[in-house]
């Protein structure tokens, strides 16, 4: 149990996808104009991460890793399909994004309109593939750990995007110098938020 809590706290704060690794920046910068759409995208990212990472964990441990196929028989013990992991992971991610897109379109058409192109683009959101690759690199020992890691990374991303969306709503009427309006100031805010999130860097759980 303590392990799970540690993984969760690490994923949300210490190894925040945005502020520790700067992953998933494109949609983070582009869809953070209002808290409402940011919440929607953040929830979608949590969902996609939370489903694809455990799936990829299963794939990794029962198909791709060296010796993972040994359940088929002893002759498969030396088979190493590790070179396929990128394409397999991204295929899983893409399939799930498609599913999420259909669900959102069906049940939340307003949000679907607001998210626009960025919803299908979750498929190429670096934080999703990043989540799968971190899972592979850190070699979580059970599917439970991988799931906790996936959800907490998603929640970390979610917090980051709604926080910056709230800031951007706040500074909507500030006299930001014209060349910096829009993306420019968002980059600067992200940097300042990164400094603030360094509060967690160094905590070892």
């Amino acid at each position, binding site marked *: 149990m303590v392990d799970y809590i540690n993984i969760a706290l690490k994923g949300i704060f210490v190894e925040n996808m945005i502020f520790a690794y700067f992953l998933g920046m494109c949609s983070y910068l582009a869809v953070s104009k209002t*808290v409402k759409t940011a919440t929607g995208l953040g929830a979608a990212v949590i969902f996609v991460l939370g489903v694809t990472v455990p799936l990829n964990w299963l794939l990794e441990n029962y198909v791709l890793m060296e010796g993972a196929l040994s359940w088929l028989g002893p002759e498969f013990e030396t088979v190493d399909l590790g070179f396929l992991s990128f394409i397999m992971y991204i295929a899983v991610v893409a399939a799930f994004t498609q599913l999420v897109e259909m669900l959102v379109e069906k049940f939340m058409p307003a949000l679907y309109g607001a998210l626009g192109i960025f919803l299908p683009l979750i498929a190429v959101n670096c934080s999703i593939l990043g989540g799968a690759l971190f899972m592979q690199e850190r070699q979580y020992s059970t599917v439970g750990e991988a799931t906790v890691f996936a959800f907490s990374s998603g929640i970390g991303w979610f917090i980051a995007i*709604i*926080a910056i969306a*709230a*800031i951007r*709503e*706040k*500074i909507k009427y*500030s*006299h*930001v*110098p014209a060349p*910096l309006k829009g993306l420019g*100031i968002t980059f*600067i*805010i992200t*940097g*300042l*938020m990164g*400094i*603030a*999130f*360094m*509060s*967690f*860097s*160094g*905590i*070892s759980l």
Partner: protein
Amino acid sequence: MKAIEKMMRKMEPDHHGKWAKFHPVWDGFFTFLFTPGETTKKGSHIRDGIDLKRTMFVVVMALIPCLLFGIYNTGHWHYVAVSGNFDLPYWDQIGDKIIYGALQVLPLVIVSYGVGLGVEFAFAIKNGHPIQEGFLVTGMLIPLIVPADVPLWMVAFATVFAVVLAKEVFGGTGMNVVNVALTARAFLFFSYPTMMSGDKVWMSGLSDVANSPEGFTGATPLGELATMATNEPIYSSIDAFSAKWSVWNSMMGYIPGSVGETSFIMIMLGAALLLYTGIASWKIIFSFFAGGLAIGYLLNATAVNGYMELDPVHHIMLGGFAFGAVFMATDPVTAAQTSTGKYIYGFLAGAMAIVIRVLNPAFPEGVMMAILLMNVLAPLIDHYVIQSNIKRRMKRLKTA
């Protein structure tokens, strides 16, 4: 007074003349010295002598006790470092200490004000808007939250960085997202860690002392405490720590640290002024301390190492906790704006400060990072407080 006013009036640059660009500079100095008598031509106007400059000046006055005490404290620890005698009587050689402290601290103040106001003036001239006086407080805060030995060019660098990137790009005073003075400190902390942390910087002049007596370190109480959470604690128990650094000493401020942060009493003097004039929010100060104490007692209850056993009351007297609570967290621009939000914001900031101190070995002091973190989360807190208010009222509307 009249003569000065007349002279200033004469110097006012013509709006179409050669010096028209510099009108904001003149305006800045003039309104700094005199309350402008002009009122709006039509519509309502408020007759009150208070404006942003006066507000800021009250805060600067509230900081003066900390500054004066900081000057003396800097002097004292310098003589401790030079003599190597840790038990040097505190109120002795008063003149020497004041002179040394003033020579160390006042240049910091001058550089911070000079550079910061220079940037402000440059932006005001460039954008053609009146000087914004938010820097009056920032310029005083920056010297108070750095070690007295920090090189002046670093202070200048940090000030420029903070004023430009944390304030001017957002549109100037009142628009910034994170506290400007804390951004300057964070910049120094991450860019020049050797000048901002460790055992050498907290007693002025210690790094120049060739060989200090054995066992003499210049670590702050918090720096020593941080070892209590590791495998090599320098104290056998937390009581040994409290024997060396008593609560009384940290309350009075007889401890090494950043220039203005050490004395709880002096900070409370400032807090009294800020609360009396209504400039700082008591909700934030109160909940900040409440958050710190709550986490302190929680850590007490679940203590697994010596650090966690520290008395929470002692905790909030050490380091920059009180200073952050009174002068940093209450910054009306970067704090939460809603009333409920202020409680949440203050509580989380105070709690985070202690959490970072105790649990994060990378930072012996967590107040700066905690407040910066809550600064960036404050708009989010406000957003949800407002949303919940709207929801509650909608409900009332529907049932009525």
